[in-house]
């Protein structure tokens, strides 16, 4: 190896380069210094490049950098060889180095061209800076946006939390309200179902929307059947029109409620009496649709009322007959008078007809008297029969003075027998009253008989019965019957109106209480007060006929 190297450097066939330079020391020095400097520099650059490549691992085109480093290193070597060849003619090594340098430089050049497009595509620093600036800006924007988003998120979360809390509170509240409502609904429902009275809800189409058990039992229809029916359909034919009108008014809102007694026709055709009460109709837009109605079966009550009315009528008749019974002596007297005249006239007439000298004129007069007395007896009986007969009370204009006069004609004998003087002060301008004539007479009769009775024990003064009629308060006819009897002492005059209150041993104590109920039924008043200075005063009023 050393021999080879020495061979290379000791090729005597060539002359050193210095020869060409005539060994000129300045020239030689310049050559040596320049080539050495270049070589030094050329060796330094690749080391810097290697360092660079080593440090910058991300560097693009590392191959190119390596090739360039090798090429520069080779170039440096050629210059070093130039220094060597100044003194030693080692041109073979020199050219070998040159050749190697040529090859590597070619490769380097080729590679440079090869990567040129790629290298050009690499962004410039300005571009990078711009891109960087934009990026920074974008990053800033993004950070701001993110911050805003974060803020918004936080706000949203806060709101969500707040709303969630609210909703939870609401849910709790609603649940509680629902529970209360359910409890209330249950309570009402159980009341509705357990109620002994019928309860129904009528909708705006006049159909039943709901009906409780009591109502179903009452009317005989099931709730399902009732939902296809309405209040009008189940109402008795005669009461339908009134029901329709009231229902229309309720639905139109012109009527707040109604309470009425009417008839229903049950499913089985039976008629029942009911009391229907409706509450306030719901206002338009209310969640409660329909008219709540309470229905009470009052059939039994109605039946009892009818029976009571019949009993009352019967009692009135009985009391009339009883009063007539007390009057029987008077009535007999009233009839016996004309009968006595008739019989006497008849006897006289027979004698007239049998006389030798026939007095036809006298006979005719006698027969006329008989006829008149017959009529008179008949009239008395007619009045008695009218007082006793079984008739439903009937209202018609009644002349109160006339009624009083008739009663007095029936009681005349009773008055006389009891040594009572009757005095009348009847107002001739008395308006008629709308009343049942017989009942008015019964009241007067009761008061007259009562007055006679009250004076029965009176010995120390005149027994006077004063009967007055007149116009009382506006549109009232007033009648007073005053006696000079025992009066009320210190007791309350009102007691005597109590049923079965009596001072008579044989009395029933019903006359005055019946009289009062009669007067009340006519819209009037009957009361008693102490007479002045003695006795009792009975007064009653009856409303005068409208327009009279």
């Amino acid at each position, binding site marked *: 190896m050393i021999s080879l190297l020495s061979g290379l450097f000791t090729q005597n066939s060539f002359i050193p380069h210095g020869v060409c330079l005539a060994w000129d020391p300045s020239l030689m020095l310049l050559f040596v210094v320049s080539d050495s400097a270049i070589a030094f520099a050329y060796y330094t650059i690749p080391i810097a490049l290697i360092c660079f490549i080593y440090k910058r691992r991300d560097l693009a085109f590392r191959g190119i950098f390596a090739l360039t480093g090798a090429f520069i290193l080779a170039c440096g070597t050629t210059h070093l060889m130039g220094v060597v060849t100044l003194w030693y003619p080692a041109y073979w090594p020199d050219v070998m180095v040159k050749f190697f340098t040529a090859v590597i430089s070619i490769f380097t050049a080729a590679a440079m061209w090869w990567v040129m497009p790629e290298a050009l595509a690499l962004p410039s620093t300005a571009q990078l800076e711009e891109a960087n600036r934009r990026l920074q800006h974008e990053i800033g924007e993004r950070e701001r946006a993110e911050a805003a988003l974060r803020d918004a998120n936080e706000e949203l979360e806060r709101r969500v939390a707040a709303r969630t809390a609210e909703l939870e509170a609401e849910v709790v509240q609603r649940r509680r309200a629902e529970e209360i409502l359910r409890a209330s609904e249950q309570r009402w429902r159980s009341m509705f179902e357990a109620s002994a009275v019928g309860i129904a809800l009528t909708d705006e189409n006049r159909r039943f929307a709901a009906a409780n058990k009591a109502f179903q039992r009452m009317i005989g229809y099931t709730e399902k059947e009732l939902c296809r029916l309405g209040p009008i359909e189940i109402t008795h034919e005669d009461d339908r029109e009134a029901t329709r009108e009231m229902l229309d008014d309720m639905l139109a809102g012109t009527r707040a409620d109604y309470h009425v007694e009417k008839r229903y026709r049950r499913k089985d055709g039976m008629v029942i009496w009911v009391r229907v009460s409706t509450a306030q109709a719901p206002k338009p837009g209310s969640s409660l649709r329909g008219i709540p109605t309470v229905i009470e079966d009052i059939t039994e009550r109605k039946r009892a009322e009818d029976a009571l009315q019949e009993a009352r009528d019967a009692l009135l008749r009985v009391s009339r007959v009883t009063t007539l019974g007390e009057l029987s002596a008077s009535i007999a007297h009233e009839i016996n008078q004309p009968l006595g005249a008739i019989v*006497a006239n008849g006897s006289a007439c027979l004698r007239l007809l049998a006389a030798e000298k026939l007095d036809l004129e006298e006979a005719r007069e006698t027969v006329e008297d008989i006829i008149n007395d017959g009529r008179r007896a008949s009239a008395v009986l007619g009045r008695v029969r009218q007082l006793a007969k079984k008739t439903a009370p009937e209202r018609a204009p009644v002349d109160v003075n006339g009624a009083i006069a008739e009663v007095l004609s029936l009681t005349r*004998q009773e008055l*006389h027998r009891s040594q009572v003087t009757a005095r009348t002060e009847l107002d001739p301008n008395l308006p008629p009253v709308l009343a049942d004539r017989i009942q008015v007479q019964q009241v007067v009769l009761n008061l007259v008989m009562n007055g006679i009775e009250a004076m029965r024990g009176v010995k120390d003064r005149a027994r006077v019965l004063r009967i007055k009629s007149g116009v009382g308060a506006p549109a009232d006819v007033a009648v007073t019957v005053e006696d000079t009897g025992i009066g009320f002492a210190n007791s309350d005059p009102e007691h005597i109106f109590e049923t079965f209150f009596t001072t008579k041993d044989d009395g029933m104590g019903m006359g005055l209480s019946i009289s009062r109920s009669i007067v009340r039924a006519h819209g009037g008043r009957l009361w008693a007060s102490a007479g002045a200075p003695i006795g009792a005063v009975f007064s009653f009023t009856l409303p005068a006929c409208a327009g009279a």
Partner: protein
Amino acid sequence: MSDKFIVMIVDDDNSIRRAARRLIKSYGFPVETFVSAEDFLASGRLHATACLVLDVQMPGLNGLELQSRLIADGYRIPIIFITAFHDENTQAQALKTGALAYLAKPFEEADLLSAINIALQRQEGVPRSPGASH
């Protein structure tokens, strides 16, 4: 029949007065009528009364009261009571105090006539008034 035998009728009922007068007249007795006891007392015809047909129930002085009054005043007038209101107590009282008869309306013609005839028979020897006996 005696012209002096006059029958007086006191009754507040017009029909009875007319009928009774007609019937008694048909037997030929003179008849006078009065509407009340007070009327009769005031008439001044008490001395002329041979027989009194007297109603029991009348307003004012009634038949029994008139009877008591006449007795108290010394009159012995035969009285025939007629009444439309039959009452045994009144009848007993009337007869006890000397009434000839007590007839309930409607009375029988025969009853009235026989009572009048009794009065007529009594008239024969009995003075009719306090004044006549003195």
